[in-house]
């Protein structure tokens, strides 16, 4: 198991212990439930991490070898569109429509970026590919 998951597991175990004590002491259901949900969520996250680590170890795939776009206009557009649409719910429906339209455009841009990233990764995986910038020497 990767040691990277250790802090997550340790945190999950400590939260679980605190939740158990709270269940024993507390007469109300909400506080211990909240703490238990937090412990469960952290346990699940740690579990996903361990499973993913094992898969990566088995396949030999390295997560840090990924193409990353230097600029992402689609992300910026999404970041502008979400608050616009939300604010529109109180300041005017026209803003919701504008924001909604921009969100659709932004998702289109993200799909386009994802395709470009995949193309770049495939090109990079070819044996005759030139060396790329980035990555610790």
């Amino acid at each position, binding site marked *: 198991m990767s040691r990277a998951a250790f802090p997550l597991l340790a945190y999950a175990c*400590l939260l679980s212990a*605190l939740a158990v004590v709270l269940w024993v002491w507390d007469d*109300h259901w909400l506080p211990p439930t909240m703490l238990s949900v*937090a412990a469960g969520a952290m346990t699940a996250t740690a579990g996903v991490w361990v499973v993913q680590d094992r898969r990566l170890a088995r396949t030999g795939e390295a997560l*840090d070898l990924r*193409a990353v776009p230097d600029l992402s206009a689609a992300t910026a557009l999404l970041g502008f569109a979400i608050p616009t649409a*939300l604010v529109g*719910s109180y300041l005017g429906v026209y803003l919701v429509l504008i924001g909604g339209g921009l969100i659709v455009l932004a998702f289109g841009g993200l799909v386009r970026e994802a395709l470009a990233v995949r193309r770049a990764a495939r090109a990079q995986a070819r044996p005759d590919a030139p060396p790329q910038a980035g990555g610790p020497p």
Partner: protein
Amino acid sequence: MALAVTPRPRALTLLTGTDHKVIGLRVLLTALAFFLIAGVFAALIRTELLTPNAGVLGEDAYNQVFTMHGSTMIYLFVIPAAMALGVYLVPLQVGAAEIAMPRLALLGWWLLVGGGITMYLGFFTQNGAGSAGWTAYQPLSSSANTPGDGMYLWILGVMLAGVASMFLAWCTLGTILRRRAPGMTMLRLPVFTWAMLVTTLLIVVSFPALILAMVLLLIERQFGGVFDGSGGPIAYQHLFWFFGHPAVYVMFFPFFGVVGEIVATFSRKRFFGYRAMVIALLVFTAGSTAVWAHHMFTTGQITSRYFALTSTMLVVPAGIEYFDTLGTMWRAKIRLAVPMLFALGFLVQFVLGGLSGVLTASPPLDYHVHDSYFVVAHFHYVVFAGSMFAFFGAFYYWFPKVTGRMMHERAGLAHFVLLFVGTTLTFFPMHILGWEGMPRRVAEYAPKFQDLNIVSTIGAYVIGLATLIWLANVVMSLRRATPAPDDPWEGHTLEWATSSPPPRHNFDRPLPPIRSHAPVFDARYGLARPHV
């Protein structure tokens, strides 16, 4: 691996760039802009409190100003500033070329800006901005008691800012767990990176409760029926404080990490008790997730003995971290440069904030000081006198790395002295005011409290003067200061093993061998030496 870099227009890079350093700087500058606005609000609040009568702002405006001061400081400044330090520094400290999920980090910055603007749009609505305090307790924040679109916009702004901080935290967490350089094991992570790791865990667990609370608050205001009944407002408080108390540690851990780095560097020693610090941080993190209801002792609706016990037990890991930091300075050849002065300021003042926290963790004492100025003094000693000193320490410490220029030492010294004096004058009298019974969140008060309020207001103006000196120092340093070498302080961690400022992919030269949490110190003095 990253795509090849080609020159692009500066504005385009600023708005859409995915370089973690650019994103970190943008988040920091955004947070600092909100800090200055919140500072103006603080000056207005203190001016109003110069006299017992509400003659400057009036009660309605005062409610809006103190609400927006608290909300801005917490949702838009301290938490994002801590995240900004993580986004900028963690990839450098773990030897990564990139942050994990850079587009998510970029989206985080955009949502932070959007959240801040949304919150402030409230000032332009009919009833003004949100005015139910930064906690927006029910039923005070209901549509009947706080009518108008300003409160809706406040809720939406808090949601956006909360989501932004979560996104930035996920990127930082992913970088620590997945992007470490070969040799950078978990027990070789720098102190600041460990502090950021536990901070991001806290955010991952606690911030969804804030989002849920805000969504329910919106539904309550729009349709009603969510927090009705005898237990409704208590349920809101549970949700809010399940976020709210861990948020205090989100505002503490990164700055403790900063102080750890600064103290070790300027003591010219390795950080003392590294493994004990790691264990203490994990225990502290878990403990701080289970103390939220000590904010609710006076409701009589919680199991006080559990939350009093867990809150008091936090003294143990806090003490370990504190003594680790003191142990690092023990018999060291300390250099008293400006970053170290701010780190020492943090250590001195945070003790007061921490000890008054132990008092309020005791239900009988909490009953006495609840909703009084004692609580205001306590959390300002934690967040302002504590974390802000560490923030300024970080600013002076990493400014040469980020900009490639040194800051002026004398102006930094003046900033430190004035800030220390101003902080003490402003916040210490509040302990006495609160103990004597002055309630918080009021524009008018009994005349017997006026003398100490005048002292407090003078202190606030001194803090304002200190901030102006700091701003002038930043501008002067950017324009005319001497160029900074790559490692001006003889730092311990990997960010000092690259150029100032770092190149696009962080490292333009081979990394030193990583055999401990202080690889640059090892490369300079050898692995066997604990100190210089």
